[in-house]
Structures are given as C-alpha cells and as structure tokens.
C-alpha cells in the first residue's frame, strides 16, 4: 500500500483519494500500529463515501432519491442522525443551508461560460426545499418526483470527524486527517505544538492566505474558487441559495472556520458563504469561533487573519 515511514520512524503519512479530492492521514507514530490506524481511518472514509455518494446507485442517497414522489423510506440510525443534523442547519440558517438544493445542478452547468436561463432555475425550484420533505425519524419521504437529497455539504466533514474518531480509538493521539482541505486534528503534535495548516488563496491555486495553528479540533473552508461561472463581469459561485436558485449576490469568496468538529466548521463556513458579504462576515463574527474570510475585493479578514488584514498576494486591491 502507499504510505511510508520517514527516517525517524515516527511519522506515518498515508495519502489517498476520496470524495473527489486529495486526502491524507498523518500520524505521529510509527510501525504496525500506525499502519493499522491509518488503514482503519481510510476504511472509515471509504465506508461513508460508499453510503452517501450520489454517484453510486447502491448508496443510501440513491435509494432515497429513487423513492422521490413515492412512499416513505426507513433509514438507519446513522443516516437519521445526519438528516437530523441537516434539519438543524436548515432551521438555524433560515433555510439557506438545504440538502435538497442539489437538484439545481441540473440547471447550473459550471463547465459552461453562461448562467442558466431564469425559467429553468424557477422550474427546478419547485422541487427544492427541506420544508417540503416529510422527515419523521426514521421515515423520510420526498413527496415530489425529482426531489433529491444530497449529503455533499456535510458528508466529507462528517467523514473527517469519523476518521479522526477511528484514529483516537486506535490510540493515536497525535494525528491529522485532511480530506480535500477539510482538516481535523486528533490532539496536537507529540511535543504539544500545533499543526500548521495553510488556507489556500481563493484566486491563486498555489498561494496561501493564512497559516492557521491548530492544536485540536477542525478547520474547514468553503470557497467559490473550486467551481464558478464568469459571465457579464459577474462571478457565479457554486454555492446556490435554495430560496432563489442563484448564488448569493455579493457573497464572500471564501470562508474558513475552526471548530471542535469538522462537520460544524464546514456547515458554518457554508452558511457564511450563503449569507452574502455582510451577512457572512457577521455570521462568522457572531459564531464566536476562530474564522477567516476573503471578500469579493480580495480583502482578508476575521480572527484568524490576525493583524495582517491585507492580501499579501494582491496588495493593490485593498
């Protein structure tokens, strides 16, 4: 298997690909135990991907979506807990964070250089809305044909938390799980020092906005630099507001949140992205959590930006 052991014998890094991105388990330990721990953590990520990927016809997600317009489906305890969590996100965000919004992807093709026709978006909007879903644990019913559930907004972060739990369960108290930039630490480095995590610059793929020192807990980032449409001088990010079917006007370009759990960090970052520029900054500040934002002008701010608020890569823009 890939992964190796450095000359000191006490760092074990296992890179792998999952959930559409580059991932890594980093353990400050060596030998058989480290190998088995990393293997268990990767297996946990694979298990969650298998269960919730919308690309797999045998996944829970596909089974639920296939039932749209029909009878209620009974779900297992883990799926029920995720649906409960998604329900909390929907309520707490005033409907902005909605796991039924994935169906809007049918109108939004981010490989094309133009936004969709408003009529197409409006037609799909009728099938969007967590409030339309009948969720009575453990029974879920998608009442309208064509409705879809998508765990994409929380699945990867949940997987990072679960993989970390696997590491802790195996006694690895100095481990870092990185799933495509969403990071969760199991304890600090062995000498008690923090892990240093670079946050990518929203417009320069190899540039960093900030280095964040993480002793434990998680850091998750949501940004519009992954997928977007540039048309008529406007940038349409891939995070769509389920209430309008369109990306928020004047939204933040990126938001990072540090929280005890990756799933909480990730959903707060997404909510900040969906709340518009002022709303997003306010949401982050009021969260009481360490955070960082990059707005449409390229300004970097938030508690993790420290005193150095300007973008070191774009000094002219501030």
């Amino acid at each position, binding site marked *: 298997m890939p992964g190796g052991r450095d000359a000191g*014998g*006490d760092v074990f890094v296992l890179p792998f690909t999952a959930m559409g991105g580059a991932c890594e388990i980093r353990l400050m330990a*060596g*030998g*058989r*135990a480290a*190998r088995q721990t990393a*293997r268990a953590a990767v297996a946990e990520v694979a298990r969650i991907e298998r269960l919730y990927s919308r690309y797999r016809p045998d996944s829970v997600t596909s089974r639920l979506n296939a039932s749209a317009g029909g009878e209620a489906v009974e779900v*297992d*305890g*883990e799926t029920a*807990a995720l649906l*409960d*969590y998604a*329900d*909390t*996100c929907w309520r*707490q965000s005033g409907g902005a964070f909605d796991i039924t919004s994935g169906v809007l992807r049918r109108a939004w093709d981010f490989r094309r250089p133009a936004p969709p026709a408003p009529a197409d978006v409006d037609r799909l909007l009728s099938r969007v809305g967590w409030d339309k879903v009948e969720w009575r644990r453990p029974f879920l019913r998608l009442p309208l044909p064509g409705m879809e559930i998508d765990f994409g907004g929380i699945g990867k972060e*949940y997987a990072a*938390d679960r993989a970390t*739990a696997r590491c*802790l*369960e195996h*006694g690895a*108290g100095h481990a870092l799980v990185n799933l495509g930039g969403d990071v969760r630490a199991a*304890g*600090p480095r*062995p000498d*008690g020092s923090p892990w*240093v995590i670079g946050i990518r610059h929203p417009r320069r793929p190899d540039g960093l906005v*900030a*280095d*964040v*020192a*993480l*002793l*434990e*807990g*998680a*850091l998750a980032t949501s940004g519009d630099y992954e997928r977007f449409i540039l048309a008529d001088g406007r940038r349409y990010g891939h995070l769509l507001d389920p209430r309008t079917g369109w990306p928020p006007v004047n939204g933040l370009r990126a938001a990072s949140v*540090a*929280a*005890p*759990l990756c*799933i*909480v*960090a990730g*959903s*707060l970052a997404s*909510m900040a992205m969906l709340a518009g520029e002022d709303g997003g900054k306010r949401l982050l500040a*009021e*969260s*009481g*959590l*360490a955070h960082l934002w990059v707005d449409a002008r390229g300004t970097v701010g938030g*508690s*993790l*930006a*420290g005193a*150095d608020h300007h973008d070191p890569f774009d000094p002219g823009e501030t």
Partner: protein
Amino acid sequence: MTTPAPASLAAPLAAPLAASLMAAALALPGLGALPARGEGPPAGPTVSVKYLDYLDFEDDRRRVRIRAPALYALAPLGDADALEATVVRDSVSGASPLPIFPLPAVAGVPAGPSGLSVPVADRRHSVDLRGTHYFERASIGLSGSWSSEQDWVSRAVGVEGRLSSDDNNTTLALGAGLALDDIGSTLDPTVEERRRTTNVLVGVTQVLSPVDLVQVNLTMGRGHGFFADVYRAADTRPSSRRQWAGLVRYNHYVTAVGGALHLDYRTYRDDWGVRAHTLEAAWYQPLDGGWLLRPRVRYHSQDAARFYSDGPDDRPNLDEALSTDYRLAAFGALGAGLKVVKEVTDTLSVDAAFDWYGQRSGWHLTGGGTGSLAAFDAQVVTIGLSWTY
C-alpha cells in the same frame, strides 16, 4: 504569519448558532465520544509464543516452580468469523506436595486445576478454542476448553454475546459457562470425585468522552460437587459454592503524553464467607521507536472462609466443614510488575514482563489477617514473541 485557532472540544460555545450546530453534531454516531472499538473480526492472522516461568517462596524458602510454554493463534475466517486457539503445556516441580497459590492474577478467584495441591512433579496440558461470529453491531462467541493433569481433568464450554449501540458508545456483554471437573489423587487411586460449575456474566462498557471509558461487569457462579483438597489430611468443604464478583474499570487516555491509565476495582464474595477487594492500576505508555511500557501495581485483601482454621482439628463431627488451605485464610497481598513490548518490524513484536506478588496476614485491610500464615512471595517472568500480519 501563523494564527492559533483556539478550538477545543471542551470549550463552551457561547454563540447560539454554533452551540446548536454543535449540539446537533454531537448526536451523530461517534462524534460525541470516542467510539468503542467497532465489532469486527481481526484484520489478519496472529501467532504468538509465550514462555512463563513462575517461582514461589514461603518464608523465603523456594518451593514450587512452574514452567509453561504457550502457543496462541488467531485466524480470521472470511469477513465475519474468527477462530482462536491456545495450547499450554506446563510442568510443575516443587519441594513437597504443598498447595501452591494460583498465579497472582487470580488471587481471590477460585483456583483452577494447577492452583490446587500438587505432587512433587506434574505436567498439565490444556487447549482452549474459541470461535467468534461478527454481525454489524454484535458478535457471538463459542468457546471450549480442556485441560488434563495426572490427578485432574477439566472441561468447560462457554458462550458470550456482545451488542453495541448504534453510536458504538455502549456495549453490552452477556456470557454463560459450564465447567465439569474430574478430580483424582496421585496418592490414592480410589479417589474419583466430580464438580460441576456454572456461571453467568453481564457487562456494560460505556464511552464517556473521547478519552474516558467505564466498564462494569458482574459475574455469578454456582458450583456443586467436590471442593475439598485431596492432599490435606483434614479438609472438608461444603458441597456447593455460590460466588459473586464485580468489576469496575475506568480507562483514561492522556492526550498530552499519549498514554493510558487503566484503573480496576474488583470485589468478590461467596457463600463460604470469603470477601475480597482488589484494586489495580496500570499505565500504558507507547514510546518512540515502537516501544510500549506497562507498569502496574495491585492490592488485594480478603477475609477468611467461615470454616478456615489454623488451629488443631477438634471437630466433634468430621463431616463439619473445615479447611487449613491458606487460600481460604484472611490476608492482604501486593503485586507490582512491568511489561515491555518492542515492535521489531511492522509485523513482529517481542515482549518481556516481570511480576512480583507478596502475601502477608498483616497486609489485610484491617491490618490483622490470619496470624499463623507464613509469608508467601511469587515471581513470574514472561517472555513472548508475536507475529501479526
């Protein structure tokens, strides 16, 4: 510049939004607390060889020595089954057919065959087999064991089931066992006695936080048949015994040093009047370079059985229960040991352990045990080699 992110699992989240998301996230399986090890067969086969050398002393006089090589093998069978086997062959040599104390780990617990009186030299063979089938959140295990020495044959079967909650934070264990013993004597071939023992176990393991775990086990046993020591001149014991044992275990993982504390409290009582309390603390410390150190200490105190006597045998009726077996006396005991494990390669590890055990009447909880009891000490050296794929 690098900015610290003060994200702590323990930090209260004051803001309502973050707090409500956190509360909802903690309801997700495995996120609120460290999940107990999920049920599932082991990833690969394991073979280990151990060699145990036991030596005891009474009032500093060397008495009994046991050498026991053991072979252990574990093999996963398919995705959902595992088979384990242990073979032990021990040889006992000693100065006289005095009773020997069972190995330190079983103080206060009914002695197995080798814990009873032994003749000058004897060999014991034993085989244990266990098969486990794993379900998604449960497992069921069946076990059988057989052991034989010149004057004793023991057979036992057991079943144990384990069930974990959806979040893996709570595990329930239920077990039952039956043992049949045939007891003879190397001095008197006419001795043919039997004993039948049954026991049941109920246990709960609860994960409290990512670094804290508590386990509670209750065991009840009931035996009928012959309990006396055939090598003692005056030894008459009741023909039945009821036993109750409780275990409370607390494990705490200290993230800062990467080590774990295991604290065990055991309590034992039976209807012969024996009451015992045992406290044990062990520390598991992995070190760089594939080392693991496990120091441990133990204290044990027990009350005598009602019919224990260290005086002259003045029973009017010889059917009345009476025993001079000092395992039924009142005493206190201390134990200390260190185990070192070194991973030689990714698949091979070696271990060595030294344990000392001492027993004195004056170490009883009240300070006053059975007065006439001789000082008893034992030392155990174990070395092992383990190979895991």
